[in-house]
Each structure stands twice: as structure tokens, then as C-alpha cells.
């Protein structure tokens, strides 16, 4: 386990695993195994993805391919890359926002993750929830963006829509810690630490 992870449960949109570490391990679920646990025919530690500056490098520990090419060693992931792990797990790698180094992994084969989420965000400095396709987490019916960003070791958020945090322990207002719920006009989401 190489970094902190939280799940964003966005009402009416979906569930999203946000990985805050520099490196994530992909593999089968196990006690001290993968950050991104896929319920599939994989090894416990099947591959790692590491952020290096603006780019991401995939290191295969077991059989993996990118866009059909079987990997022999660490390979840089480009926007839109099709990653295949083992024989059946297919996922798409995206860097939707030009100004953010954060990336999104979406499972394309019908495998489930643990916890079950719709996509995985490898969060660099910020993670954008919003109606535009360039958002990391696309929330079609929203009117405003909601941005999660790092400040020091804290996670904070900003949004142009008025929002309130429904947890009295968060007296600081805009800092996200532990499990909390944020509601605003036209949106609501909860964060769960795992």
C-alpha cells in the first residue's frame, strides 16, 4: 500500500477512487496488496503506475500490454492509452485536463474494483469534478466545478457554488479530513477514507 486513498461518492453520478500516492499498485485484492484492486484473474501485485512529473510510467510485474504491445519494461502512458493486464482486464488511461497532471483510469472490461467504483483518479495537485468533458470526474448535470486540491499535506476544496460541509468537526471549513459530506446547490458528495 503506497499511499492514501479516498472514495468520492457523488450523488447521482457515481463512486470514484482517488489515489493520492505517487505510485499505485494494480492487482488482486489482498490484505497488503494493491491500491487499485481489481476482482479479476490477476496477480496480487500485477503492475505499478508511477507519476514522474507530468507523466506516468507503467511498470509490468506480470503480463501487461499497452495498445496491444506486450511490455518488456517500464513504459510511459500516453493520454488515451489502452492498458491490458493479464488476459482479460482492459482499462483506459486518460489525462483529461491540460493544466492538471492528474490522470483517470477507467475499466473497460466488465471487471469490478474493490471498493466498487466507476473510475480511479490518480490525483496529482488537483482533481476537478464538473460538467465539462475535461473534468476528471464528469458530472453531467452539474452547473459548477468543484475542485479538490492539495495544500501541504491537507486536502481542500473550492467551488463557485455555495456549499456547506455537513460535519461539525470540520471547523476549518474547506479542508477534507476523514469522512465528510459536502452539499451545495445542485450537488452533493461524500468522501470516505479507506
Amino acid at each position, binding site marked *: 500500500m503506497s499511499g492514501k486513498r479516498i*472514495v468520492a461518492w457523488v*450523488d*447521482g453520478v*457515481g*463512486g470514484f477512487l482517488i489515489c493520492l500516492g505517487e505510485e499505485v499498485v494494480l492487482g488482486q485484492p489482498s490484505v497488503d496488496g494493491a491500491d487499485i484492486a481489481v476482482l479479476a484473474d490477476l496477480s496480487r501485485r500485477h503492475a505499478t503506475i508511477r507519476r514522474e512529473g507530468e507523466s506516468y510510467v507503467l511498470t509490468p510485474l506480470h503480463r501487461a500490454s499497452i495498445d496491444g504491445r506486450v511490455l518488456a519494461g517500464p513504459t510511459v502512458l500516453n493520454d488515451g492509452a489502452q492498458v491490458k493486464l493479464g488476459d482479460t482486464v482492459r482499462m483506459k488511461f486518460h489525462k483529461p485536463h491540460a493544466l492538471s497532471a492528474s490522470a483517470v483510469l477507467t475499466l473497460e472490461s466488465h471487471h*469490478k474494483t474493490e471498493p466498487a467504483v466507476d473510475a480511479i483518479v490518480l490525483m496529482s495537485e488537483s482533481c476537478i469534478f464538473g460538467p465539462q468533458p475535461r473534468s476528471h470526474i464528469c458530472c453531467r448535470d452539474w452547473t459548477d466545478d468543484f475542485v479538490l486540491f492539495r495544500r501541504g499535506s491537507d486536502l481542500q476544496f473550492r467551488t463557485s457554488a455555495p456549499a456547506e460541509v455537513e460535519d461539525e468537526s470540520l471547523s476549518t471549513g474547506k479542508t477534507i479530513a476523514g*469522512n465528510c*459530506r459536502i452539499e451545495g446547490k445542485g450537488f452533493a458528495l461524500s468522501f470516505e477514507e479507506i
Partner: protein
Amino acid sequence: MRYAYPSGSRPLEGYTIKRGVGRGGFGEVYFAVSDAGKEVALKLIRRNLDVELRGVTQCLNLKHQNLIALYDIRTDEHEDRWVVMEYVSGESLDEAIEKHPQGMPLELAMHWFTGIATGVAYLHDHGIVHRDLKPANLFMDEGTVKIGDYGLSKFISCSRRSGQTESVGTVHYMAPEIGNGRYGKEIDTYALGIILYEMLTGHVPFEGESVGEVLMKHLTAEPDLNVLDEPYRGIVAGAMAKDPEVRIKSVAAMLDRLPSSVRPVGAVPMPNGRSAEGPVVLTVDEEPAEAASLKEDDEPILAALRSGWYDLERRFDESDLHPLLKSMIVIALVLVFVSSGIPFLGLLLPAAFLYLIYRTVRAIVVGPSRKRVAAKPVQGVPSRSESPGISSVLQERIQSETARATQEQRTKQKTKQFSRQDWRQQLQEHLAAKTMRQRMTELVGGMLVATAVASIGSLAICLVSARGVSMELYVWMTLVASLASWAVMIPTRLAEGKFEDQAPMRFVQLVSGALVGVMAWGIAEALVLSMPWSNIGIGPGSGMMDVALGFSLERSTLADNAAKLVRLPLQVYAAYFAFLFALLAWWRQAEVTRRSRVSLWSVVWCGFVAWLLHFVWWFPQPLGLLLAAVIAFTVQFSSVWIPPSRRQALAEGEEVG
């Protein structure tokens, strides 16, 4: 989008909510995980929907790969019910269609369609009508189509009058007969036709800016099917037939018409094989829709009479017969009735008397219990005869929905609506907002026309009926008919859009009728006019009231009994006209929203009532009934009338031209 339960809450023992998924007509749906890790969807059904839950219970043990599985129904500590069901994570058909704005590839569309149709056929086979098929309820989970929300689609046998449903279907997929309270499986076939069309073209066949516009198109417009290729054009056309009787018989038949390459083999569980003409599986008695007008009073005899009457009236008014022919039919009917009226009346009066007694008893015995039933329709299943018709409940629902939609739209300065009641109300508001000046202009114009029409009408009457043309009689009739029609038009125009019940209007008419009577007497006196009368019914002074009050016309007032001419005192005129005015809803004939400009039917009706009245309060006939008919004709002909085609536009906010 607000959800009552945030992530992490545990309204049900054993399940932790993760997030809200969506909101259906019934309540919120959540994604939750059981303590052991089972992913489920939890559908919250607020209390007081017990009746609906019967439907879910019937569906709990259905098994089909194309149906979202229902696991259980649980009750939480707030007495709210939760349906625990399979969580489907794939995309909905809604999203899939959105990805292909020009229509999805045929192969994909057929994958969806065969899955949906197979699942729906299974439901129908088990006696369940989905009633809310729409792309947002259909999902693709790991390559398998899943139909959702069917549990709430109610079991047919108990759903027909459960009434309080929220799931009436999105209007885009709503079959026309739903407005009549018909909920056969044909409505699913219709929805499937629309869905097939939408998948292949990327848009629904009937689009509109308002709920009303779309509903109206379902009822009247023909879809543009030229964009589709055969055999899909034929299938959509067959499934979208307005008349459920002509629609494709079953979903299985729809599947059968697909090219064999895309047909799922053996997937349709029809008990009689997969024959297109197989017997209809559902044996449900289709209760025909009751007319909304019966809603207020469904005493069976009166209701039957009334609906028959309305029907006859409507057919007569709307028939394409030449007006001249219509008039001749009417005159012939009147003559027949008058000539044979006396023995006929002998039968009619006792019958009416008996009915009156029956009605009184019924009101005492049945009335209070009926009210109780109507007030609490959800408490158990009301017995068949006492239950409020589903159609009226739906009607109300549509109305309330309309009202809500209207409210929403009004804020956008865009008022469109669809139900007749609703545009009536809209129009009512519009009329109430008219300035006094507008009213006066309309009124004065109408009054001038009325005079002209009255004089022509009177002339016609005098020429046809009066024995020997009398100038005085003609003048009297013209003047009285004009005055009387003014007396109807003036209050109607002034009160336009102000009163919703009839009591005030009746009273106003009683007074103005009396006034007209006084003036009629005054004119007759001034012209030294004797009224001719024939014995069509009874002779002078033998009306019920005349007898009862001991009010008899003195012999001296009978100017010439042999020639059947009579001069009447003031009170006879005043009372006759007052009664005549109060008895009939004259203002209806002057309303801008009446069904047709001139309804010969109501002209005849007015004459008939005038004739009936003379049994109670004698007045020379046929003069009285002819006069009433002329007044009715005059009022209708000269009052402002907005053609139905313009009403919609007007209700949408256009100014009166």
C-alpha cells in the same frame, strides 16, 4: 439533487449507503453495500404507498436475465419501505442514445431491443404490465440488457384502481389511451415502438416544448417514419398505432417481425410457442374509460342518461350535415314531439317523479359512505362499484401534473398546457384580466348584432307559425328577444372569468329574467297586444303553480277565448321569464368557450324547457317556446366565440384578436 440519506448512513440493518443513484417517481434509489460486501440498490418507497408494494411483492420472485432482480422488501424504523434489488452498474439506454445523436448502429440497437423486448414479453407472460418503459429504466450490464422499475409497475389485477401511483410514465413514451385510464399491455408495446424509433434515429418521434404539446402529439400527430428502413418502419408503425386494438398484438409479435438474423432464438417464453397470432396471454377486463363528466355524479341511471345525451349532443353538433338539414331534422323532431307530446308526457312525469324519490333515498343511504370512500382511496381495495374510476384518478393526476408543469413554465413566461380543464382555467384567467373597455366594446357590438338577429328570427317565427301575421306581435317579439338576449349577454360579459360556480349567475339571471318579463308586459300593453295561444299541453290557468297558488287568470283578462287570444297580467310575464332565465344556464350559451358558435341542440333544449315550464306556470304556447328558442339562437349567434383552434394559442398568452 438532494438525497435524504448521505453516504455512510444505515437506514436498514445490514446495509451501508454509499451514494444516491437517482430518483424515480416513487422515491430515491441508493447504491449500498451489505455488511458482507454485497452491492445492492436500495429503493426507498415512502410510506402510504402500501398498495403499490403489492405489485412489487408479485414481482419479487420473477427470474429473467433481462430483469433487474428484486431481492427483498424491508421496513425501516420510520416505517418506510425499501426494495432491496440488484445493483446494475452499466450505462442506461438513455446514455447510450445520447452517445449516438444520429441513431445507434443497427447491430447495437438490435442488441438492446431484443433484450428489452424479451424481458417485457416475460413480464407480460406473468401478467405484469411495465407501464413505465423508458430509456432511463433500461440498462446494459456486462452485455446483458436489464429492465428496471418493473416491480413498481404493479400487478395488473390490483393496479387498475390503485390510483395513487406516481409512475405514469414519461410522456415521451406514453401511449395515447393512458389518458383514458387504459393500462393494457398495449401501452408497453407502444413504448417499445417509441424506444426502437429513438434508438434508430437518435430522437423520439414526438418532441415538444411542453408536456402538453407532446401528449397532444401522441393523441393526434403521425410520426415521421420515412427516416426508418423496412422492416423497422413497419414494426414502429404497427407498435405506434394510436388505437390499441390495431396495434401489434404482442411484444412477441414484434420480435417475430425482426429479421431472423437479429432475432433471439427461443428467448421468448410464450406458453403457446412463438406464434405471432398466439392468443393474448393477459385476460384482463378492460374497463372502458368513463367520461370525465361523469366524475362528479355517478348515480348509474343519471350517468347513463347523461352520457347518452352528451354523446348525442356532441355528435349532432359536430356532424357534417348541412345546417339546413339539421334545422329540418330539429323542426321535424319538435313537431313530432309536440303532436304526440301529451301521452308521452303522461309516461314521463310519473317516471320523473319516481326517479326523484329514488334519488332522494339514494342520496341519504349512499351519499355519506361514498364520500368516505372517495376521501380515502388507499385504505384497502375499494369494492368495484364504489371505487373511484382509475381514469378519474389519472385525470386528476394529469391535471395536477399539468398544474405543476404550468407553474414551472409560467415562471419562464411560457404558458402552455394541455388538458381541456387547464386551458379553460387559463382562458378564464385571461378573460378575467380583460379591461372594462374591451368588454364594453365587445358587448355593444354583440348587442347590435343581437337586435338584428332577433328581428330576423322573430320574423321567421311569425311567418311560419303565427296565425295571421300581426305587426304588433312581430314588434313585440323582436323587442323582447333583443332585450332578453341582452339580459343574458350583459351579465355574462361582465362576470366573465369571475365566478366559478353557478349560483351567483343563476341569481343574476332570475333577477334579469324578471326584469325582461316586466318589460315584455310593458311592451305588450303599449302595443295593446293579445297573445295567441294553442293548446299544446294545457290551457290558460291550469299550470301547476297557477292551480297551487290559486292564481287563476280571470276570465276578463282573456280577450277572446274562442279565438284563443289572451292578455296577461304583469305577474304572469315576470314570473315566467324569471323562471325561464333561472332554469337554464343561459350564460353558457354566451361563453366564449362554448363548443360551437351556434348549437341547434341547445336552441331546441331551451324551447323544450320553455314548453315544460308552461305546465308549471302557464304562458301562451307555442309563443313561449319559440321565443325561448329565438333568444337562445340570438344569444349564441351574437356572442363572441373563440374557435377551438384559436383557444390553445390564446391560452398560451396571445392577445385576443
